[in-house]
């Protein structure tokens, strides 16, 4: 036995869960109310949001606020599907790669979206 490299997965999982717990509900409420039409004042208007996200500091924050929950979800999904039935070593390996690769692709797309054209 030797100390595992699991922390490289677990630290983003824990950070992502914390970010999701503290920040996601309020963001969800704002987006839900705005898209459902309950908020006046053009809360999600393109000029407004584009101008807000344009700040490099905001984009840096968004990278972590949106990116960390991706890794939280990926790891938790992997462990849950393991709990629910993935038992063989092969199944578990495919599952792990599937989850983390998906999070990786989403993170790359996120990074691109926050860097390109601003």
């Amino acid at each position, binding site marked *: *036995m*030797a*100390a*595992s*490299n*699991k*922390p*490289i997965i*677990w*630290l983003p999982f*824990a950070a992502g869960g914390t970010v999701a717990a503290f920040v996601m509900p309020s963001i969800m409420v704002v987006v839900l109310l705005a898209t459902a039409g309950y908020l006046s004042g053009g809360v999600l208007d393109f000029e407004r949001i584009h101008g807000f996200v344009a700040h490099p500091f905001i984009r840096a924050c968004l990278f972590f606020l949106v990116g960390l929950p991706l890794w939280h979800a990926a790891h938790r999904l992997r*462990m849950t599907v*393991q*709990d629910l039935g993935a*038992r063989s070593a092969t199944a578990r390996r495919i599952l792990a790669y599937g989850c983390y690769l998906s999070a990786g692709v989403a993170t790359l797309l996120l990074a691109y979206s926050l860097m390109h054209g601003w």
Partner: protein
Amino acid sequence: MADTITVRVLRYQPEAEEKTFWQEYEVPSRNDWVILDALNYIKDHLDGSLSFRWSCHMAVCGSCGMMVDDEPTLVCKAFLRDYPESIEIKPLANLPVHRDLMSDMDGFTDKLAKVKPYVIPAEAQSSEEGCQQSPEELAVFRQYTMCINCLLCYAACPQVGLNPGYIGPAALSLAHRYNLDSRDTGRRERNEVTASDEGVWECTFVGECSEVCPKHVDPAGAIQQMKLASSLDWLLDKLVRRDKS
């Protein structure tokens, strides 16, 4: 309260019968009896072949852990009056069974030994200084000393069932007890086992171990604290590339 209680026991007598089988006994139901008393009545008066472990009869030795109506229970502190007129007793879940209600403890004791459950003092420690500990320092780990190795937590933990190599709640909590002990310097040594893939990383914080623990050790909390501590150790090691001695 009814005069008798029906006790259904899942028997396993490997030299006679390869498969497990249920056996029912009618036992007098006394108001002050615990399930262990019922089992002893069965053994003394009805069926001497029934095998089970017990010792202190007061929930400090950890011997009498069993599944009562699918609940991990110390049968010496489960009163008959709190149960319906028929109960089912099985050996602890997730553990191999020797015979009847006797689980195999060897797997657990191996795991316990692996986590080095003893104070590993600093090398140059004078015998006068080394043993002093303040009440505040004791308070931090005292809760984790309370484990009686009853293995109810192993029966409650689905990861023990799903991953037989998993070190498990009690062994990990005991490692944590020593990691938190101010006299100990062995955390990094223990990390080799506790922070391995069979250690804390098998845990998904189901939390049922802490729910069933008769001594309120909170192994789940201990394990999460160890996940954080070993992750920070890991991070420090990667950043500083220090020599792990």
